């Protein structure tokens, strides 16, 4: 079977899942199993099919599982958001379509994605500059003490989602060029292998950018995510574990310093360590997120069960705050239980596995590093938010890729997917050519 036929087949369960999910939500709410759920399912399937046809024409050799896996997450996210708030789900569906348009445009215009290497500094600078936007008066927005978003008219967007791709592109390109020097020029000082000072620059820049994010725009989650992706890339490029250790030490020292001096960071850490100290105040969100999970058990309470409102509040306030964004994972554990949540984590793991597989197959350094970086940043993002909700690490405001409500998140992640598929298409075509067999459907 060709790659695209496998993809087509893999889309069938996605459509079933989506339709069944909506049907369950409908059945729960007043038992009015209307045909709207079927229409919704049909729309979604139609859009997926269109994307599939597009991929069939443009990237016939690309990895067949990535798109269906991501569609699974999107479908799941849509169902969850739908039952929180119908209008949010409509927004999210629109963003999904918009994300796919950007996905198609990326694939169309970046077929030769090496062009990115040429503009790496521009990309990095723009990526970092847009991070500043949320602090600009007039368009900046502050949420929970962090400056995460920009709002221009009706459009709200979170620059960090796009910056993560820009940073990965820059690092992949920079490390491709300098990795040899970094390895060869390394010196051992007091038993620790240090990178050559001359090439230490970018490391400091990325570290500085992370610290900057931590303090200036107060985005702990993205800061952690960027730096982790950077260390992952550095490790893959150089094979030096000591660099990772040094980087981690630098990050921890910086984080510790700011945690003890910047109140916002300090608070986040305190809440993480001692949530019960202020159960009705700062600890409220993480505690209710944990309580929602405790209530879910092995199999969950079923769709439409988790959103308990607080009696006597007008308009009714939900017991679980930010259920459609930050704490959506808690909602998932509550409604589909440990089994459902583990299933979802497995989908993330499968995407990660496919992503790394693309990196393994790719023949040139830039493709390898780019695929690794994109995959790593995606996986780490999922870890940072799920880890935050489950109290593995302090809770921060990053989105759960493809599931949380949020336009920029879904659009940025589709661009990320487009890049992965571009790399994959070339890598698999080259691998097939090298093996002497051109798979069916490949252009002559």
């Amino acid at each position: 079977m060709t790659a695209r036929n496998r993809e087509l087949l893999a889309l069938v369960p996605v459509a079933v899942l989506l339709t069944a999910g909506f049907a369950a939500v409908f059945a729960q709410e007043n038992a009015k199993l209307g045909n709207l759920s079927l229409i919704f399912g049909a729309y979604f399937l139609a859009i997926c099919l269109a994307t599939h046809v597009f991929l069939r024409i443009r990237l016939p050799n690309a990895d067949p599982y990535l798109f269906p896996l991501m569609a699974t997450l999107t479908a799941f996210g849509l169902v969850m958001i739908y039952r929180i708030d119908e209008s949010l789900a409509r927004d999210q569906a629109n963003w999904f379509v918009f994300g796919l348009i950007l996905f198609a445009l990326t694939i169309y215009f970046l077929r030769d994605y090496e062009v990115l290497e040429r503009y790496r500094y521009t990309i990095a600078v723009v990526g970092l500059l847009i991070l500043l936007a949320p602090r600009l008066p007039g368009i900046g927005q502050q949420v929970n003490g962090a400056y995460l978003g920009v709002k221009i008219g009706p459009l709200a967007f979170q620059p960090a989602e796009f910056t993560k791709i820009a940073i990965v592109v820059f690092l992949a390109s920079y490390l491709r060029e300098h990795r040899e020097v970094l390895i060869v020029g390394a010196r051992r000082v007091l038993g620790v292998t240090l990178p050559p000072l001359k090439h230490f620059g970018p490391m400091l820049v990325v570290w500085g950018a992370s610290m900057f994010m931590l303090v200036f725009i107060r985005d702990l989650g993205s800061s952690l995510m960027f730096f982790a992706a950077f260390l992952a890339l550095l490790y893959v490029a150089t094979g030096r574990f000591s660099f990772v250790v040094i980087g981690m030490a630098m990050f921890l020292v910086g984080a510790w310093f700011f945690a003890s001096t910047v109140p916002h960071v300090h608070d986040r850490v305190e809440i993480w360590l001692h949530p019960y100290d202020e159960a009705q105040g700062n600890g409220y969100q993480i505690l209710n997120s944990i309580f929602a999970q405790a209530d879910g058990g092995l199999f969950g309470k079923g769709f439409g069960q988790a959103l308990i409102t607080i009696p006597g509040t007008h308009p009714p306030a939900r017991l679980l705050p930010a259920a459609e964004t930050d704490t959506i994972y808690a909602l998932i554990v509550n409604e589909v239980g440990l089994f459902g949540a583990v299933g979802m984590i497995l989908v993330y793991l499968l995407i990660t596995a496919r992503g790394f597989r693309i990196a393994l197959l790719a023949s040139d350094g830039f493709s390898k590093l780019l695929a690794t970086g994109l995959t790593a940043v995606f996986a780490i993002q999922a870890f940072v938010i799920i880890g935050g909700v489950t109290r593995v690490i302090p809770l921060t405001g990053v989105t759960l890729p493809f599931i949380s409500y949020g336009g920029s998140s879904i659009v940025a992640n589709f661009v990320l997917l487009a890049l992965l598929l571009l790399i994959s298409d070339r890598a698999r075509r080259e691998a097939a050519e090298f093996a002497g067999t051109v798979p069916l459907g490949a252009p002559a």
Partner: protein
Amino acid sequence: MNRQIVKLFGFIVVLFGILVGFTSYWSVFDAKALEEKHANKRPLFEQQQIRRGRILAADGTVIAKSVGKGRGAEKRYVRRYPEGSLFGHPIGYSFAEYGDSEFEKFHNEELVGDEGEFTSILDELTGGTQEGNDIVTNIDTEAQRTALADLEEAGFGAVVAIVPQTGEVKVMASNAPYDPNRIPDDIEKLNSNEIETPLFNRATQGLYPPGSTFKVVTAAAGLESGTITPETTINAPGSLEVEGTPLQNDFNEDFGPIALDAALTNSVNTWFGQLGQQVGQDQLFETMEKFGFNATPAIDLPSDEVYDSGVYEEEHLLHRNDPVDLARLAIGQERLLASPLQMTEVAAAIANKGKLMKPQIWKRVIDPDGRVVEKLDPSVYSEPVSAQTAEELTTAMEGVVSEGTGTNAAISGVPVAGKTGTAETPGNKACGGGEEENQAWFMGFAPADEPKIAIVASVECTEQFGNDVAAPIFRDVAETILNGEGE
């Protein structure tokens, strides 16, 4: 670079593994503890969303029901108790904010309709919402009313009535009563009332010296062990020296050599004191334990709200090897404490030819569709005495009511078997610390030849004797139940 990529993937697998581990911890392993956290309002709000089933008396009187307030997702249910304080004990209360007690607590799962994980998945797929089951109890509304009214006149105390053959609890009244509807407003006040202790169910938690009612247990041990027969005579002087202090009959009356019937009819202390010594501690304790002493009664109430009867040293129960003044134990003194429920079990076992049935308040569980999902299946707790011993004890207990110390329990046209008890409880704090305070008892069953109901009435802090204050309550309640049966 491929080796590093594979290692990086391995690292991410570990990270995701940690997520799975933490999620499992919160959602499964630590879930129970989290649900009990004070900061966790979720179970409370959830509970309010479920319509709890009703609790009904045997005649269909609604004891407890849930009423809804608000609409849709805002809907909350609150418990109402239409009869007020009449069934405060043993039904208890259930309020999301204030917890639950007694019958409401013990039968919580049936009342909220809790099912296993798998059934609730099925419910979700079919779109069903959780609804509670109704429970029909054995409680006789009229008899409960009679018992409570009589008690309110007599003083603090309790009445328990059990059907000997099935263990069905028809009456469980405790004075002072409380109105469960008042819990949300007055729980602090009810809890801090140390004199009336209205939240305290005296039928199951009140531990009192049983006095002469316990002589029936001593007699049972004597007959059952073969130490005596109904014809065996023991010399009963006016006073007997036991462990350095004299054990006396009322007015130091010397009865001479008499047999069981005369001894029980006149409640002769020196006779039973000697019998206790002859029976021995092992045998006496064995009989007691078969009657239910030294264990938590097997009733459908939360075990921490039902107290064990037995010989107490401070907070601890003594056992057969501990040193005990047998003669005084035999007449219900020593450090022996018994609950009204325990003494009712003694009467019920004798009434049921020596078989003690497990006392149960519930009778049927009915699901929201009206189907009976569970029915009380009477079961035997133990067989403390043989049918013959039970018959011999019955004969002796009939003498108590017809010509002895318990004549006020007599019902015209119905033979009654029973035993009075009056234990001195000087300095009882609950009574105000007076020296003249008695615990007055009457324990019995009727009709003696064909028992339909076993009843115990126990009154605290009275200057009167069992026959004066407890026996009339027994009679009133027995009449109410027997008349109700005839209708």
